[in-house]
């Protein structure tokens, strides 16, 4: 009964579905199911928190056919955050190479686009696009979960 009471008291916690980002081209080859592998190439983890939120029960990206997976071998889409550091450049390349085709790369956050405040810093190699080909950017420092979900939803087309 305690659970039922709490459900009644709390009411609905989840946000309603985010509208699809129409600007994102639908990845037709993926057939509505998008498996995502995430790589942190040197981020401050702000983007990770928002990505985590995008897959949390509140925003629930999984209802749009998007799943986080544990290996690039299973993934269609690679999300990368942060400026690419020297130490993470090679693992990032390997991760990208390990993905089956067709594959898409989504750079999440401003640092992934242009290194943000870390530009020119010690150990920073450069933006993601310098290391692997990037298909989409999600702007923001960090981007809001809604933005992330909108883009992923655009990819899955659902």
């Amino acid at each position, binding site marked *: 009964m305690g659970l039922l009471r709490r459900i009644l008291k709390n009411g609905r916690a989840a946000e309603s579905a985010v509208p699809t980002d129409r600007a994102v081209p639908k990845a037709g080859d993926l057939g509505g199911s998008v498996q995502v592998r995430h*790589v942190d190439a040197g981020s401050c983890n702000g983007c990770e928190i928002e990505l985590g939120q995008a897959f949390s029960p509140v925003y629930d990206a999984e209802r749009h056919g998007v799943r986080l997976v544990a*290996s690039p071998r299973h993934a269609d889409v690679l999300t990368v955050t942060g400026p690419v550091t020297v130490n993470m450049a*090679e*693992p990032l390349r*390997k*991760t990208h*190479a*390990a993905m089956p*085709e067709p594959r898409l790369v989504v750079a999440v956050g401003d640092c992934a686009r242009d290194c943000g405040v870390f530009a020119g810093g010690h150990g920073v190699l450069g933006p993601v696009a310098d290391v692997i080909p990037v298909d989409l950017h999600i702007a923001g420092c960090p981007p809001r979960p809604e933005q992330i979900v909108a883009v992923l939803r655009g990819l899955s087309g659902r």
Partner: protein
Amino acid sequence: MNPTGTALITALLLAATAALAALVFPAAWRARVVGTLVAGTGSSGVWAGAAALSGHGWDADLPRLLPLAGMRLAVDSLSGWFLLLIGAVAVAVGVYTIGYAGPGGRGAGSRPSLSLLPVFVGALLLVPAAGSVPTFLLGWELMAVTSLGLVATEHRHHAQVRSATVWYAAMTQAGFVTVLIGLTWLAAAAGTDFTAVRATAGVLSPAVKNAVFVLCLVGFAAKAGAVPLHPWLPRAHAEAPSHVSALMSAAMVKLGVYGLVRVGFDLLGGGPRWWWLTIAAIGALSALYGIMQAAVATDLKRLLAFSTSENIGLILLGVGFAGLYNVEGARGLAALAMAAALLHTLNHAGFKALLFLGAGSAVKATGTRDLDQLGGLSRRMPATTMLVAAGALGAAALPPGNGFVSEWLLLQSLLHQPGAGAVLAIAAPTAVAVIALTAGIGVATYVKAVGTGFLARPRRAAAAGATESPPSMIVAMIAVALACAVLAVLPTITLPAIGRIVASLHLVSPPLDGGLTAIQLSGYTTRFWPLWLAAAIVVVTGLVAVLARRFGRARRRAVAWDCGDGPLTSRMEYTATSFAEPLQRVFDDALAPERDVDVTHHEESAYHVQAIAYRQRIPDRIENRFYQPLLRAVERLGLAGRGLAPGVMHRYLAYMLTALIAVLLAGVIR
């Protein structure tokens, strides 16, 4: 003399020659000569068996050969089946010995070991050929003693070999004593000759029959390695040289089954329901316990030994249900269950001989039996790996392996049970469930054995530096693999012989027909085409591979995923322990593994861990619960017995006087 007799006598003479040759020839030639002669013994055994199975029964009296009782040999179709099986295994083992023992003259190539080997093979052939109680007991004991000597071959090198030998000696002799008492009792009541026993078995009192059966069951089940009389088996099979393990596992333990069938069905002419229920229950227990222990074993040969327990369990299930159906009046199904059991003895002999010979090849090359330390042999020893994989396919009881055919027949006999009587209605479905579970775990077990032992990368230098075994060993294994393949795709060639055997055991002919390529149960629509199934699997697999290459996406070469970091090492592979971990978790309550986790902390801070040591041991629970208390009790009794001999002369004189008076009194009263 008819062909059976000629071949059998030839086999025994060849065995004797080989034993003498081992004593005479120098080390450089010993293995070659003895191996060839053992192979000759085996092929004569096969010839004798085939002749007996095609209807040439043979019996002979050799009254002067044994004092008091004389020897009597009698070969019928049931004997023929086991002669064929033993002979075939001996041929492979003989050829294998040439390479395995080698010219060094040590260990398996030593004089005692090589001279015992042919005697052992001869004794194995003598047991099913025995036609009287004394001959049978002679063969049985000769087999036990020679195999004991062979198990002890490497006793100088490893302490475990000595412990295994002691276990085997104790259990095999205890088993012999029960068989001795049982059969002597039978001989006293019904005559020593098997023909005389058969003639008078009908009028024996049920009490005598029951006692004889129970005593023989204990002895034969111990020899067959059935749970709970199995503790010698994983020890002896693991510690013996591999060609001996192959002979013991493929041929010797089958003689336990032979003994049960011979005494239970043939000599005593069947019995009450509880006999067969007991056999079936022992079979079910062996099957389950054996495969569970095999699934978590990390020692390759111990795994194979426990799998032997499992297969003996399946065979005993078949024998038990044959008797049970016979009592219930379902004679066709009884014949079918017996046919399945007999076919499984042959199939198991095939794939288990192959697996033990293959294991021997791997162990000889690497010096270790530990699956956790092997791995990567497929590159260094491709022939051995392929042959072991072929054996594992049979042992996993998946089509197109040969183990599948007999397990399928066994399941058919259980699924078509007539539904008469509460006992059958409960026992048959239970047996089906047991077989299903056993088969499932069996697949995991053999995937583990081949996958972690032979594939992937070598985990130790010993495995990395392995070299392929000499050609004689490979040839022997290829011969066994071919025999397995024939049994897998054309099992129907054995059906006429099996029909004759089953008919000779007071059962009807098994209700099977369907020509060369199909097996069909008469009266049912159930049908199975082993040849076409195997062909279909090969064709479909080939077709998929070709089509995928032709029409699929272009291949892309990439490194194995290593988490983006450094190269993969063999430390990251599945070991046998880690592969079996989920299964072990599932059967945690049944297996009761012992785990130790030692965490060492830094001196400065209890929060900093310096090292973690994890140890796990999966003990044989039946052994701990049942045998350890028994051994302790025997030890206490022995210590207490010392009190009887305090070294006082008067006491000893009093004992003698009392004994004398007791004997005299017994004589007078009688």
